[in-house]
């Protein structure tokens, strides 16, 4: 980039959102600020120009990649981002691409039959606890318990992929 005016404008417009973003993921102020600094220095040194209307996606990707790099190098407390990822997967259960869902289903397969059924009704069919209790003829408390232990187990599964990885590799061979 050879345009100081555009550079300055871009900085002014996006620095705040990007810093907040990298802080949200790392929970480390110094690291978050360094990441944003690196991203802007890279932007300035880029040989080819970034299209003006593509600048925000570009900056977003650049920060994302930096955060991932620091994650791989253990530069911040990884459990924060990992917890967020677990929450995200569990919250977006129903909308996640079926291809990745294989991974989740394989986790679900490990659940006891009843627990799996309750969890799928709750997460995939968007049913309320009352509706599930009615449908299955069990108490609301049992539904709640099944959901919470199901989610917990799912979360555990997301935390430890060691024993699920071979399953995925097999899947890909077909």
């Amino acid at each position, binding site marked *: 980039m050879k345009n100081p005016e555009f550079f300055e404008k871009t900085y002014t417009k996006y620095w705040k959102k990007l810093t907040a973003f990298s802080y949200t993921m790392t929970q480390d102020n110094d690291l978050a600020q360094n990441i944003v600094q690196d991203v802007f220095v890279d932007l300035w040194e880029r040989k080819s120009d970034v299209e003006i209307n593509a600048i925000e996606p570009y900056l977003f990707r650049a920060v994302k990649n930096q955060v991932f790099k620091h994650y791989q190098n253990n530069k911040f407390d990884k459990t924060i981002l990992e917890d967020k990822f677990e929450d995200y997967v569990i919250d977006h259960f129903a909308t996640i691409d079926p291809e*990745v869902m294989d991974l989740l289903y394989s986790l679900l397969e490990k659940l006891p039959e009843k627990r799996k059924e309750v969890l799928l009704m709750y997460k995939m069919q968007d049913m309320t606890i009352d509706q599930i209790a009615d449908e299955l003829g069990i108490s609301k408390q049992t539904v709640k318990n099944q959901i919470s232990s199901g989610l917990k187990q799912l979360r555990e599964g997301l935390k430890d992929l060691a024993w699920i990885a071979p399953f995925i590799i097999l899947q890909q061979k077909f």
Partner: protein
Amino acid sequence: MIKRLKHSLEYLIDKSAKNKTTQAEENLLNDFVLSEYQNSNWDETSMGNSNEVSQNIYEGIQLRMEKKKTFKPYFKYIAAASILFLAGLGFLFQPNVANEKQLTFKTSDVPKSIQLSDGSKIYLAANSLFQYPENFKGEERKVCLLKGNAFFEVAKDKKHPFIITSGEIKTRVLGTSFHIQLSKSKCEVIVVTGKVNVSSKGQSVDLMPYEEALFSDKKITKLPVDKSLLINWYTADIALNEATLQQVITILQYKYGVTFECENKTFLSIPVTVFIEKNASLESVLKQINYITNLKFNVYDETVKVN
């Protein structure tokens, strides 16, 4: 066998770093991070004062750019020098350009500003033409005002003097801010802060703040400056209260690079109060003055006739 723990996120990130993720896995990662992006907000208590943080980050960026020498002092030393260059003479003059790739910067109806590779900032009046190298190389920082007016804020760099050629005169900045105006018959340099040297064919004057060099009929004369005219027409809105029409016209000449011709000099002492917005067009300002004074302004290219 020791069970190796690997979080699903780590699994995906590692895979993504090796470009081995499937489209669906990449989407999941991306959507997750995008939701983090969309939900992120500045939180003063955990993140601190945003102005301080912004400054902090920016300074770090500058420092690293300086180190790599691709980006010299950008904000830091600005306004080491500022000059008003009121220029016009010989705009066919070609400065000797060594190996530097030259760029031109031209304004039409409204004034604009530009930042040079050394961090110097140039505010170019309307109807002006300025030439500068893409990157400064060599001992001196040479630029050229080919037409019109400009205000310079020269970044401080003692080792590389900043030299502006305008018509037959050269303005050398010894560390400072100034204006330059070039018109068909004369060239004026007005210093706002710092020290400036103006020379032409064996003549040379040093200017201090609030001094002006007038180059006309091949002679350089040093004059004091009416301080009221040294408002920054280049960056801010201008409010002129009970100023004379002469003063208003002078400012318009700087800002829009036009010349006024007034047949009846008595008009020039008429008091007027005008407000000139930073990005106002000349037409709108003239309309305003016409409304107050009933004087008619006819614009012919870069000349305004007053009746």
